């Protein structure tokens, strides 16, 4: 099977006509180091394995093609890749939900009744958040990013990220109230 990077058009300068292309060995190294973080973020954003596959691939192809857009002064490579994945995920969401407003505040009522598995309930509750709240809660709670790092990735203000995180948590607190963990006795 031919790799996606191999399928990119070849020019006399190298694989692509882009003079800012990143060396394939560097992309390989970045892939080995950050594939799990990128995949986990894509998977949580979409809650779909196939979509996570696509987004992860597209993210590293983007790194290969547009390496000049990565500026180490603005953050580390992991955060840059999460940012690329975030943009790809939102683009995909917009395509699939053309008639839904990209509203910061909406949250579907999650259908959690009857879900015996806590993990499934958490997944459903997070999926019920708006994409902007979802990305903030995932980046903060699961990827361990700071508010400033999230603001840099989402190209927004730290205050906006903070209020979005607050609203996301409030929505989750209410949605998951019936799944309160049992008291462990300490």
């Amino acid at each position, binding site marked *: 099977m031919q790799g996606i990077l191999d399928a990119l058009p070849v020019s006399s300068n190298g694989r692509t006509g882009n003079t800012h292309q990143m060396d394939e060995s560097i992309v390989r190294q970045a892939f080995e180091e950050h594939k799990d973080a990128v*995949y986990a973020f894509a998977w949580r954003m979409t809650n779909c*394995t196939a979509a996570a596959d696509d987004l992860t*691939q597209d993210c590293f192809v983007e790194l290969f093609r547009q390496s000049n857009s990565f500026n180490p002064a603005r953050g580390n490579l992991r955060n840059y890749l999460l940012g690329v994945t975030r943009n790809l995920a939102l683009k995909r969401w917009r395509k699939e939900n053309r008639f839904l407003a990209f509203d910061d505040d909406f949250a579907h009522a999650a259908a959690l009744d009857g879900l015996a598995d806590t993990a499934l309930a958490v997944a459903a509750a997070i999926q019920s958040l708006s994409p902007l709240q979802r990305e903030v809660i995932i980046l903060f*709670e699961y990827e361990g990013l700071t508010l400033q790092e999230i603001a840099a990735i989402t190209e927004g203000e730290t205050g906006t990220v903070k209020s979005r995180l607050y609203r996301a948590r409030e929505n989750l607190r209410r949605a998951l109230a019936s799944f*309160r*963990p049992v008291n462990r006795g300490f």
Partner: protein
Amino acid sequence: MQPLNDDELKDLLRAWRAPRAPDHLKTMLFAPRPRGWRRLLTASVTVPVPVLLLALILLTTLFYFARKPARAVSLADFQPAKELNVRVIRSNYEQH
């Protein structure tokens, strides 16, 4: 029902674990380019739809004309000439 507190929410969120990146992603991204005849067998080309449609129209037209039988020629309508008025024109060379 009373909403969860911070610790309870964190505990619950931890229950949702993401899978690791599958191995086939690496293959899809970095698999080596096939060489020689393998490349010929696996290569693909992208054709714009208008070009494809034009090619189909051309092929259909060629196929139509290739299959259409040539009109049969019959000698039945040919009749021998009844009168021939032959006029001989001599060349300048012969006149001298």
